[in-house]
C-alpha cells in the first residue's frame, strides 16, 4: 500500500535545502491527477530557529539533585536557548529537615549563583518547623539576591507553621514554589508520597487564606494527574502553575491554557529540558501566549520585587 514517492522526496529535499516553499512546479507533481490528489509538498522546518526565537526563564530548575551541576544545567540551557534558570536545592524528601540541612542546601545555591550570576537566580529552602532559623535563613538568602523559595514535602503548604513564612514572602513580594505529588490516577496518590505532601486542594486552601501571596504549583508534567490538578486550581488566581517535568503528554499545555489561563502558566523544565521546551513549542497557541509562558509571566512576578530580568 505505501508508495514511496521518489519525486516528492527529491522535490522536497532539494527545495528544503534552499529554504524554498515548494510550488507545484517544483514538487514533482506535474500531471493533473497527481497535482489534485497526491500529497502536498512538505516544507523543511528550522526547529531550532523557532526554539531560539523566544526568550526563556526556566522557572523550575535544580542544582545538586540527580547529578545536576552548573555545567550540565548550562549545557542544556545553551542548547535550548534558555536565558535564565531559577535554581534551588530542596532538602531530600523524608530527611529530618534540620536547620543545618537547609542551610547547606542554600549554601550550594549561593555558590552556583555566584559562579553564574548572569544565568542563575536562586531560590532558598527551609523548614517552617524551625521558625527562628527559617526567618534568619530568609534574611540571609534574600540579602544575597535570592528571588523565591522552593519547598518539598516536610510540611504541607497550608499548615499553620507556614503562616509566618508566607507573610514574610508577601512583604518581600517573592513567589513560593511548592512541590506536588505523583499520581492520584488510581484514586489515591502514589504510595511513596509522604503524608505532608501538598496536594492541589492544599494550594487552593492557602491561596484563599493569603490572596496577596504568590504560589507556584510545581510540575504539571511531574507525574501528577495534571487534568485533575488544573481543574482544582482554576479558581485560585494567586496560584501560578509551572509546566515542568518529564511527562510531555500531548495537550497538557493546551489543557492548562484552558483551565489556568495564559497569564498564570510558567515555562519550566525541572531538569527535563527537552520536554520542557518541546511541549510548549508543540502546543497550539498564539505567539503572544508562547512568549508569555516562556518569559513574560515569570518576569512579571520577578518585577514585583524589582528582580525582573530586563
Amino acid at each position: 500500500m505505501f508508495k514511496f514517492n521518489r519525486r516528492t522526496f527529491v522535490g522536497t529535499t532539494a527545495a528544503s535545502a534552499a529554504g524554498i516553499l515548494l510550488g507545484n512546479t517544483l514538487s514533482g507533481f506535474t500531471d493533473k491527477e497527481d497535482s489534485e490528489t497526491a500529497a502536498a509538498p512538505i516544507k523543511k522546518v528550522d526547529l531550532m530557529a523557532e526554539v531560539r526565537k523566544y526568550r526563556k526563564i526556566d522557572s523550575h530548575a535544580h542544582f545538586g539533585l540527580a547529578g545536576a551541576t552548573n555545567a550540565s544545567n548550562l549545557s542544556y540551557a545553551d542548547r535550548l536557548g534558555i536565558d535564565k534558570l531559577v535554581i534551588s536545592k530542596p532538602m531530600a524528601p523524608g530527611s529530618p529537615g534540620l536547620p543545618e540541612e537547609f542551610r547547606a542546601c542554600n549554601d550550594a545555591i549561593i555558590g552556583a549563583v555566584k559562579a553564574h550570576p548572569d544565568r542563575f537566580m536562586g531560590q532558598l529552602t527551609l523548614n517552617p518547623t524551625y521558625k527562628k532559623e527559617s526567618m534568619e535563613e530568609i534574611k540571609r538568602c534574600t540579602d544575597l539576591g535570592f528571588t523565591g523559595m522552593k519547598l518539598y514535602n516536610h510540611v504541607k503548604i497550608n499548615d499553620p507553621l507556614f503562616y509566618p513564612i508566607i507573610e514574610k514572602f508577601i512583604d518581600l513580594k517573592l513567589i513560593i514554589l511548592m512541590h506536588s505529588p505523583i499520581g492520584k490516577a488510581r484514586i489515591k496518590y502514589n504510595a511513596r508520597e509522604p503524608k505532608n505532601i501538598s496536594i492541589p486542594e492544599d494550594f487552593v486552601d492557602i491561596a484563599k487564606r493569603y490572596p496577596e501571596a504568590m504560589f507556584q504549583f510545581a510540575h504539571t508534567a511531574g507525574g501528577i494527574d495534571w487534568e485533575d490538578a488544573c481543574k482544582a486550581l482554576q479558581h485560585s488566581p494567586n496560584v501560578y502553575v509551572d509546566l515542568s517535568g518529564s511527562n510531555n503528554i500531548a495537550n497538557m499545555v493546551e489543557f492548562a491554557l484552558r483551565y489556568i489561563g495564559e497569564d498564570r502558566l510558567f515555562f519550566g523544565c525541572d531538569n527535563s529540558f527537552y520536554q520542557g521546551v518541546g511541549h510548549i513549542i508543540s502546543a497550539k497557541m498564539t505567539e503572544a501566549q508562547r512568549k508569555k509562558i516562556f518569559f513574560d509571566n515569570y518576569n512579571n512576578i520577578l518585577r514585583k520585587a524589582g528582580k525582573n530580568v530586563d
Partner: protein
Amino acid sequence: MLIDSNAYIGHWPFLQLKYNNFPALSERMQEFGTDISVVSSLNGIFYKNTQFANEELSEEIRSKKAYQSRFIPFAVINPIYNGWREDFETSVNKLGMKGIRLHPIYHGYELDNPACIELVKMARDRDIPVALSLRMVDSRPSSWLDVEKEWTLANVMPIVRAVPDAKYMIVNLANSLVLDEKDTALLKKSKVIMDTSGRNLLDLGSLLKTFGTDKFCFGTHSPVLDYCTGLLRIESLRNDEANEQTKEMLRSGNLRSFLNL
C-alpha cells in the same frame, strides 16, 4: 527528509487526544516538516480482535492518494488471540502493512511466549520489522483503569535473544536503558532501531556513542506525546555530538535503510 517512526491514529479510552486522525496528523506533519510517518492504530490495543483496527487503518490510508505516499502502516497483531497467523498474512499481503506492532503489556503475554516467538520468526522470514513500545503512556497519572506496568530496555531483550536476526523497532524509551555487557553487544549487532520520543533520552549524544549512530531515528509517539520533543533531541545536537550527515541519518536515513525505502 524527515520520517516519523512512531505515530498513531485512533483513540485512547482514558484521555482526549487531538491530531489522532489522518487529516489532523497530516496537518501536524506539515507544521513540523515531516514527510512520512510510520503509523499504527491505537484501537488495536483495545479491540480484542485487533484485525478490525488494522482494516480501519488500511481503509483510511487507501481512501486518499496523498496518504499512500505519506504513511507507512504497521499492523497490530496479538499472537495469543485466535486467528493471528491469518491476521498477519492478511495484513502483510492484502492490507499493505510494512511492519507489525506488538503490545504484550496490554494484550497480556510475555515476550518469550512461544506464540510471540513464532510470530516474530514469521516477521523475520518476511523481512517485516517488529515494533515494541516501552510504554504507551506515563503510568503515574494514567487512568485507574489503565495498566501500571512499564518496561525498561532490558525487558525487550528476551525476544531479541530468542530471535536475534529479526528487525526490531523499540520506541518511547521512557525508562532505564541500562543493559549488561552481553545484551549491549547483542543489541549493537542486531537489526534494532530506537526512536527519539522517550523521556529517558537525556543525552542522545552519548547514546549515539554507546549504541551507534545507526541505532536511532526520529519518532514522536504522537498523538500521545507532544509532537516536537523527539525532534528537538536531534536538532539540538551539537556538532561534536552529531554532524549534519549524522543528523540526516537520524531524521530519515537510518529508518529508510531499516525499512528498505
